[in-house]
């Protein structure tokens, strides 16, 4: 046995004054008697006593000493040594989504934290430990310490995560914490629902799992995307997996911005996955919510598969993967400047495009002051110097820096579209009346997208360093192209292609990831600016904003790991008052479990159920010896009080 606080044993010196108090004849007891004649005779016959014979009431003294010994021993924090040296331990708790599965009346994480507490309380004397929470990343929730309450508190404060589990990072972090300590051990408390086959090669690692195979059906994918070639159309992709040995049925309910969009009945065979896509058209975006409801498992399992309980019907063990969200961005609108002498038909074509914000000018702006971020459409009147950026030229009637008009060709025979290109998708000139076409001599070699029979360009593309130019040299006023459906198709294709599509954020992110969200601010960002991040549960936290030095009103908000699944909101402008959830400025970030490894609640490998080595310090029912000594002291004090007050001992 050893004492962790050996200096407390000095308190045993208190036994000395206690003993002195039992030796000294300091108190005389008064007893009323009728006469002292008899007592005087006794006193005269009583021999004198030595100092040591004056020690009285040994039982009482012994009791006090016993009480003192228990108190001193408790203060010394005794531990039984069974031969194990001080130990360094890193406990890794798997907090991934699958640990929230219901098991044995609670959650798997509860079982793991209980086991963690038992391990901490049973540490050999002088040991140090650390606690790491592992999901997608590794978070050291308590660094190396020998203070058991801190470790226990850290374990109790651990929160579950909706992220997928990947313990390699945590094991690496644990090994770094242990450093060169040869007696160090790493214990991973997990349900082993992750894909990693090399963990068993780690020499200091013990994997403990009390998880049993559980049935589960969940959403493993939920993403939405606008068609880059046709931004008016979008699609939602949802994948559902049945990770169980039973046939599973459920209803997949889809809502967009709260409005019910679709309900699909699913019936999946054991271990089957299904992927469904849901198209949508229109410029408006919204928030997709997919939810699995009424999940039922039938009992047609493979007889060889062990069933935890043969009598009750299997139930869906994990609920956080039964719902998912995705953000559908509004279709990007494009600003278009039309410079036309007054062709109503051309103007109407652009006005009819739902993604175009059209401005019409009769003449090119003075001093080449073209508005930024516009696609310029020049009809007939072309300035000497073409503007920078993307340009569409219809029926050019004068020379410019990109071409000279050589001649006018009459009645050319259009051929098939020469080249497959996004601009010429669904574009045909077969029945279009083309009485005249300008023959242009280009400064740059054009890419011919449509040509006449003899190769005369009818639609071509110039790739300038300042921006692309699409030229249609048909004489529109003489042609019926502007009245044909191919013309709006051509213009729509051209606008989409010239606008391009930026690399938008994914519509949904897997839980546990950190996201850098571009923000548009209402005022230039200050150096220490923060935004507010609202979790799906409503918790508000401040997140830093990194300003964009090139654009004062642009910045990037950096989030920490988003461990909760659901819809997060970022208020770009921060502020001291909590933002309204209905704020139009809030940027939504969709976070889902969306991991087939977490939806499958069946442990991939067998694990141990309890630590194997080194032997743990004895602890009765998980309590250290000092605890029982304190209670023993309380009991002794109470008992001694009773005996003294009833004068059984004096």
């Amino acid at each position, binding site marked *: 046995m050893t004492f962790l606080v050996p200096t407390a044993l000095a308190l045993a010196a208190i036994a000395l004054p206690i003993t002195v108090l039992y030796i000294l004849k300091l108190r005389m007891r008064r007893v009323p*008697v009728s006469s002292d004649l008899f007592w005087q005779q006794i006193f005269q016959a009583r021999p004198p006593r030595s100092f040591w014979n004056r020690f009285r009431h040994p039982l009482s003294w012994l009791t006090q000493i016993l009480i003192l010994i228990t108190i001193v021993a408790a203060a010394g924090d005794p531990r039984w040594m069974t031969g194990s040296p001080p130990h360094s331990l890193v406990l890794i708790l798997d907090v991934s989504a699958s640990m929230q599965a219901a098991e044995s009346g609670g959650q798997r994480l509860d079982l793991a934290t209980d086991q963690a507490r038992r391990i901490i309380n049973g540490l050999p004397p002088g040991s140090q430990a650390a606690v790491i929470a592992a999901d997608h990343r590794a978070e050291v929730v308590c660094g190396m310490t020998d203070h058991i309450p801190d470790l226990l508190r850290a374990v109790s404060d651990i929160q579950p995560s909706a992220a997928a589990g990947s313990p390699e990072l945590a094991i690496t972090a644990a090994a770094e914490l242990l450093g060169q300590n040869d007696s160090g051990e790493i214990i991973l408390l997990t349900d082993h629902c992750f894909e990693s086959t090399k963990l068993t090669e780690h020499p200091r690692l013990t994997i403990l799992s009390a998880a049993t195979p559980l049935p589960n059906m969940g959403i493993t994918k939920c993403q939405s995307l606008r068609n880059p*070639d046709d931004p008016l159309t979008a699609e939602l992709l949802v994948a559902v997996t049945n990770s169980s040995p039973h046939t599973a049925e459920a209803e997949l309910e889809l809502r967009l911005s709260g409005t019910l969009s679709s309900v699909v009945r699913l019936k999946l065979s054991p271990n089957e996955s299904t992927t469904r*896509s849901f198209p949508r058209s229109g410029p408006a975006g919204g928030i997709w919510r997919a939810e699995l409801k009424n999940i039922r498992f039938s009992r047609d399992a493979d007889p060889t598969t062990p069933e935890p309980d043969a009598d009750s019907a299997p139930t869906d063990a994990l609920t956080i993967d039964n719902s998912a969200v995705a953000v559908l961005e509004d279709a990007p609108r494009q600003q278009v400047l039309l410079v036309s002498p007054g062709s109503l038909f051309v103007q109407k074509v652009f006005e009819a495009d739902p993604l175009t914000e059209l401005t019409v000018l009769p003449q090119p702006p003075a001093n080449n002051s073209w508005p930024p971020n516009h696609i310029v459409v020049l009809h007939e009147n072309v300035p000497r110097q073409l503007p920078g950026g993307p340009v569409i030229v219809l029926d050019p009637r004068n020379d410019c820096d990109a071409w000279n008009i050589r001649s006018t060709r009459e009645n050319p025979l259009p051929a098939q579209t020469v080249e497959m290109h996004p601009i010429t998708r669904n574009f045909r000139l077969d029945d279009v009346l083309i009485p005249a076409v300008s023959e242009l001599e280009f400064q740059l070699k054009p890419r011919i997208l449509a040509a006449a029979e003899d190769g005369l360009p009818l639609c071509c593309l110039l790739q300038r360093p300042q921006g692309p130019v699409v030229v249609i040299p048909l004489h529109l006023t003489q042609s019926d192209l502007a009245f044909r459906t191919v013309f709006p198709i051509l213009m729509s294709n051209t606008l989409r292609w010239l606008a391009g599509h930026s690399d938008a954020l994914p519509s949904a992110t897997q839980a546990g990831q*950190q996201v850098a969200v571009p923000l548009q601010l209402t005022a230039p960002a200050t150096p220490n600016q923060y935004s507010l991040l609202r979790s799906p549960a409503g918790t508000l936290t401040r997140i830093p904003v990194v300003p964009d030095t090139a654009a004062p009103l642009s910045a990037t908000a950096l989030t920490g790991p988003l461990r909760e699944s659901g819809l997060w909101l970022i208020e770009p402008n921060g502020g001291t008052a909590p933002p309204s959830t209905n704020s139009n400025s809030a940027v939504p970030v969709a976070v889902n479990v969306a991991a087939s490894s977490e939806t499958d609640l069946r442990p991939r490998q067998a694990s141990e159920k309890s630590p194997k080595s080194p032997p743990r310090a004895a602890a009765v029912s998980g309590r250290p010896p000092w605890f029982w000594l*304190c209670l023993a002291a309380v009991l002794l004090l109470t008992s001694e*009080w009773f005996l003294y007050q009833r004068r059984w001992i004096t």
Partner: protein
Amino acid sequence: MTIEFAQPSLLLLAIPAGILLWLLYRRSLSDFPVRQRQLSLITRSVIMLLLLCSAAGMTLLLSSTEPWIVFVTDVSRSIGTEGHTAAQEFLRTAELARGRRSAAWISFASTISAPALTPPAAPGSTAPADTQTNQSPPETNIERALDAAVATVPPGFVPRVVLLTDGHQTTGDALAAATRNTAEIWTVPLPAPSAPEVQVSSLKAPHEVREGEPFLIEAEISANHPDEGTVELFRGEFRVAARQTTLQPGNNVIRFEQSVERDRVAEFRVRISGLRQDTLLDNNSDLALVSTSGKPRVLLVESEPDQIQELAFALEEQGIPVDVRPIEGLPESLEALQNFELLVLSNVPATKISRQQMTVIQTWVRDFGGGFLMLGGDQSFGLGGYYQTPIDELLPVRSDFEKEQEKPSLGMVLVIDRSGSMEGEKLEMARAAASAAVDLLGPRDQIAVIAFDDQTWVISELQPAASRSRIADQISRIQPGGGTNMFPAMESAFETLNSASLRLKHVIMLTDGISNSGNFEGLARQMSAARMTVSVVALGPDDATDLRLLKSIATLGRGRFYHAEDAAQVPRIFAKETLTASKAAINEEPFLPQIIRATRTLADIDLESAPLLLGSVVTRPKAAAEVILATEKGDPLLAWWRYGLGMTGAFTSDAKNRWAAEWISWPGFGKFWTQTMRHLMRPGGSQNLNLTVQQQGQQAVITVNALLPDGTFLNTADVSINVINPALQQTTIPLPQTAPGQYAATIPLGQNGIWNLEATLKHSELPALRTSRSIYEGRSDEFRLRPTNQSFLQQLAAVSGGVWNPAPAEVFQEASRSTRRSVPLRTWLLSAAAFLLVLDVALRRLEFRSSMTTRSSQSSQSAGISTP
């Protein structure tokens, strides 16, 4: 300050305990004064309470602003001497101001050192071992260093990281680490190297352009001093632009306008030279790859390019661009072959192609779906020495087959130099070549093997080649010996064949030099007169005189001379020689092509009216090959099959004047070849499949976007990517679907050089779609010359609540934020209980009468007896 109990429920025991104490007090038989008994009760109660609080785990939670400082020092390769010195000085000064503050020290580059609790002698002395030995990849991972630093801080302290770095991370995201950790990050900028340096930081070009479409190539040149130099742009091996440039300190961007007309993958390299001051020279160039999409192209390699012009013209007329090159123009690299959809070898011997080129061709066909066609000639198929080569493996026909009975029997003598200079790979190749030659002979052919050094050794007597295993066993025992005396061996060969009754007699001599003289030319003439042929293989002799003599022997012997610089060519040469000598492989008799299998590829070609062909190479089809046309004797004329992802074909006659003179003037000539080649060509990249690659440090994020022909997203497809690294090692990685029509994965890039990627998409409703891309993984950004990234370090400090560029003494100041430190009170409580126990006992043993009254009335004072 708050108080916390680990098991607060234990405090409930105080209630029954207190009640019991009080009840017993009330029924006490003690005769002490009331006040003393009350005091005793209180004392005992307090002791009880102290014990229960101890058992309940009473802990004091204090708010602490004491920081625990972790010094994290960047020791990566981008830190020069000035940086190391500045870091060392900072740490030394900080140590003087540390006092009693707790601290730890960590060094990092791509890996992290173990934390040290004492200051290092020098920052680099505690660097991770693999960084110190330069074995780790040259990276700076600030994110990992920050995570590791925060993990070392024990509970009860405010974590503070002091990061000494130049701010150039090459992997990881330090801002993400700063955001998710709760530590303050104080950043100390380290100075950049000051030696005069100019480097090409990057070369940017679009990944994909259309044929003929102009585009800009941007070269970013970094300099830390004013200088002048010449910036050259190369496309492949040719310089296409050069510009004299004045450089300013900082980044200088030079733009070139280019276009790609014919190449599928164009390699651009920029180089700067002629600088006045430059410390490192190997960072003065960079490379970029530009892919183009356009018409499918054919590469036609012919040993005599002039002879194949009719075929090239016919293909061009049919709209197939053809690139005709001599043998020297055969590409050496995979990315060069990627410019084409079909490779045609016309009468090209294997002895002119290196092993590396053959491997590249095989990889390109098998893994990238390239098409391959071999046209016949006297240097093709087995006659070209392709036996047991990678090219032989991908052909649909084979050359090693049983010789026909009516062919004349051959007697062959192999004369092999086994002198000391042949030791090692040379002799090993010679043995392999001899064994291969034995395999290629017919059972009626006869072979002898003679080895020589300064003596002549008959390894195997002239005997039928049917005894292959015994002959091979004898060949395997050839060991290197002494000097070189070839003449007696040549004489022995002559005598051996002279006494044999055979229709064909051939000698193959292999040597790496002649040391002893002899009448070689006279003997060669004698052998020629005896209707023997002599071929000579010179294995790399440097002596020109020897080469001339050996060549003369071959010429006089009416054989062939080969000068092999690489021993690995010897087996191919021997195979070629054997087949050539046996005259088994060529059939030079006119014949009409016979249709064996109808195919849609040639459905509208009137092959019945095809004219005569005047010869072909005799081959046999492989098991899975499709024989479309054959000779009148049943030998394959046109055969093809699928090899990996590609199609390969064999046309055993030729497309030149030698055997196809009448075909050239046939009206169906162009159409026949056009349709045959289109059938074998690699399909062009799909318009509906878009492959993007985003390089992030040592990784590349591959994204494939796929649309159906109607423009809607293509979902639930089976998408994979074939990745071929610069060492031509291949890996296939599946790309799971991540969004509508989108499939993505991340691949590690561990080697510098060109990586070739081929994405394949399979869907039940579509034919397989493919698209490819080449990317260049260049020098790590660790070697880029850049000034200290102060703005990044300022951001890092700002988002974490730290300080940028603090003075060394400032790092130990109290933290602005606090943390909770728990102080267990058990020992204190139990100590107090122990001390109170003395008072408790004293209150039993001592009577304090002066201020207390007793139960006994004062009447007991007169008659009372005191007893101890």
